[in-house]
């Protein structure tokens, strides 16, 4: 398929693997930020092809995985209110809240719809004026523009029965939280190509500088990932730490101005609790004052008790790269995709689910 097959070319893959092997003299630990990158690495069997010196750990870039149990509970609460239609991306439905998941709420009669785009939710609100339509707006900087746009569209059309439950998270603060952790083991980052397509790469220069950590903005196909790994290892072997852009076919330094404008029009930066990690200051988006009529948290009196995370799930350590899924005592036993203890086993981009579904043939990646 055009524009994809070029980046899945087996000969180029072999060439990059050879080059990585040739230049690697020491063990290095690299973190790919995005869950989409994790899945591509595992699904294509790339982890098996890398030299043993290179350890890939899987970052927090899975919005489903980092959404806190309290936010899931908020969404479930809203879905159970009379006359509310809760719309969500499909991934969120199986994630366990403190008592149940949205899928279970749906089975018990809550009106929950799976959508691909928040703009569909606006249409739904338009066609159901007697209902309150709430969109569960999760995601990183990638989904923020479309979610913000839905609010702008609703406001323009005077649609009053639409709101969003914003649970947006931001990549750079999470990278700082990981690098600032006393137990940090990460030598270099593969930054998330799609996030940088929207936001540009300027935010990463101070991080690379402050933590002396190479950051390579990387795409998602096998050739992208291997090229990104090669660029990061080249920096590590030379002892330099720069921001480089492997994904230049999509990412420009300044990002997408129109998308950023839309985000800034609707959202304000706020603190956010990350599942398994805890509160990270200034690491999320919330609906701003101007659009407060579209903030579901203000529109509904969400009255639910604070819920603790499931202690049996070590998702925080996994997302900080301190542990691998197979090091969790519950992996594949008490915790399976059909009965997940935590979100990384649920989401298609979660590290645990990736290991579970696409396990390496020789189990080398789960040692």
């Amino acid at each position, binding site marked *: 398929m055009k524009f994809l097959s070029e980046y899945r070319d087996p000969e180029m893959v072999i060439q990059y693997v050879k080059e990585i092997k040739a230049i690697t003299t020491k063990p290095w630990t690299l973190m790919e930020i995005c869950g989409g990158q994790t899945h591509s690495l595992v699904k294509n*069997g790339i982890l098996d*092809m890398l030299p043993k010196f290179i350890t890939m750990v899987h970052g927090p870039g899975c*919005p489903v995985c980092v959404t806190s149990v309290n936010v899931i509970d908020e969404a479930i609460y809203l879905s159970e209110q009379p006359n509310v239609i809760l719309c969500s991306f499909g991934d969120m439905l*199986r994630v366990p809240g403190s008592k149940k998941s949205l899928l279970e709420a749906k089975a018990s009669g809550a009106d929950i719809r799976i959508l691909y785009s928040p703009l569909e939710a606006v249409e739904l609100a338009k066609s159901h004026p007697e209902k309150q339509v709430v969109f569960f707006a999760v995601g990183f900087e*990638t989904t923020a523009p479309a979610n913000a746009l839905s609010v702008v569209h609703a406001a323009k059309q005077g649609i009053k029965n639409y709101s969003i439950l914003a649970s947006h998270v931001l990549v750079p603060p999470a990278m700082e939280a990981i690098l600032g952790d006393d137990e940090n083991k990460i030598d270099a980052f593969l930054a998330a190509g799609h996030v940088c397509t929207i936001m540009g790469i300027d935010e990463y220069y101070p991080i690379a500088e402050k933590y002396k950590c190479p950051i390579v903005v990387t795409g998602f196909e096998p050739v992208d990932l291997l090229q990104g790994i090669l660029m990061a290892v080249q920096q590590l072997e030379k002892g330099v730490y720069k921001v480089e852009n492997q994904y230049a076919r999509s990412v420009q330094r300044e990002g997408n101005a129109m998308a950023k404008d839309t985000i800034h029009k609707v959202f304000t930066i706020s603190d956010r609790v990350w599942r398994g990690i805890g509160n990270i200051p200034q690491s999320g988006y919330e609906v701003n004052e101007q659009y407060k009529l579209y903030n579901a948290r203000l529109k509904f009196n969400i009255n639910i008790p604070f819920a603790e995370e499931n202690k049996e799930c070590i998702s925080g350590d996994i997302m900080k790269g301190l542990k691998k899924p197979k090091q969790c005592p519950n992996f594949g036993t008490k915790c399976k995709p059909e009965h997940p203890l935590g979100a990384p086993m649920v989401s298609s981009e979660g590290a645990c689910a990736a290991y579970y579904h*696409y396990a*390496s043939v020789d189990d080398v990646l789960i040692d």
Partner: protein
Amino acid sequence: MYTQSPLYNNLYNHSMLPKIKMNLQCPMPKFDFDVITMGHGSGGLLTHKFLQSGVFDILKNELLDQQHDGAIFELNGKTAFSTDSYVISPIFFPGGNIGDLAINGTVNDIAMCGAEAKYMSLGFIIEEGFTMNEFWEVLVSIKNAADKANVKIVTGDTKVVEKGKGDKIFINTSGIGSIHPKANIHHNNIQKGDVIIVSGNIANHGIAIMSLREGLQFETEIQSDTVNLNHTVLKLIEQFGNDIKFLRDPTRGGVASVLNEIAELTQLSFYLEQTFIPLNDAVEGACEMLGLDPLYVANEGLFLAVVKKEIATAFLAQLKADENGLNAAIIGEVNDTHPGKVVMKSRVGGKRIVNYLTGEQLPRIC
């Protein structure tokens, strides 16, 4: 099975969909009602008239014409028997509708046993308010599919449920037929060294339905592959007999699920080469956009065969000469390196385990 939120029904614009070509010999009879009402399932006069002028006339054959509570017939020797329920939504889709799907699906299940479906039952559960026009379209498709598969519908049932208690129309079919004398299809026959063959492009049906629901359009329309496979399969059995070890149509759960089931049952390893798996470009593109893995996507006119290595080339050649096997391909082999597992060599040369799917494939966020 495709469950879906009611939203899709709202978004689903029936007028956009290709209409089935009506068979000119089957003009719609004059019904007293434009829509199906509770009375059509009451068992009274309305039911009688509806069945007489609707169902019996179009599906007529000597066994159905007896209008008895059940059909009485003889079968010879070993027999295959199968049932399936069809609840697909939307009921009309590019390449078919719920009617031909309900016939082909059960005919194919019987074919995978090494038999040719001879007789079928047909049960309707219709939601009140379903239009006669749509019902007629479905019925004509049923007739055409049954004629093509050379199977007779000999008994049936019609129930009507209140508005909101169903989703337009649900169909159940059962089929029965004699096993071909040369057939010996059983997973126990599979051995190390056997070859895995797929009869065509994978994932077409599931993606045709998903594209329709999501309003995705492609340069070439993706069509469901729904078709009866019995003639194709029986010709292969006639030629290759018990060198065909195993047959299965990978419907729900797709190719990966079937292979996982037989890997588990046989405790052999099923080794696939990703680059060998035939996949239509548009389907591959849709899978990329929707975040779906084609190995888990449903098929309706496709089968997997595990055959003895010595006949694999000849089997493939005969299959490729058949209208239902033009894109058939050898996709892998059976070995004993990873007992009970499906292993795939990825297109870039890495290897991974292809696992069971948990629940539905849900669309991903970014």
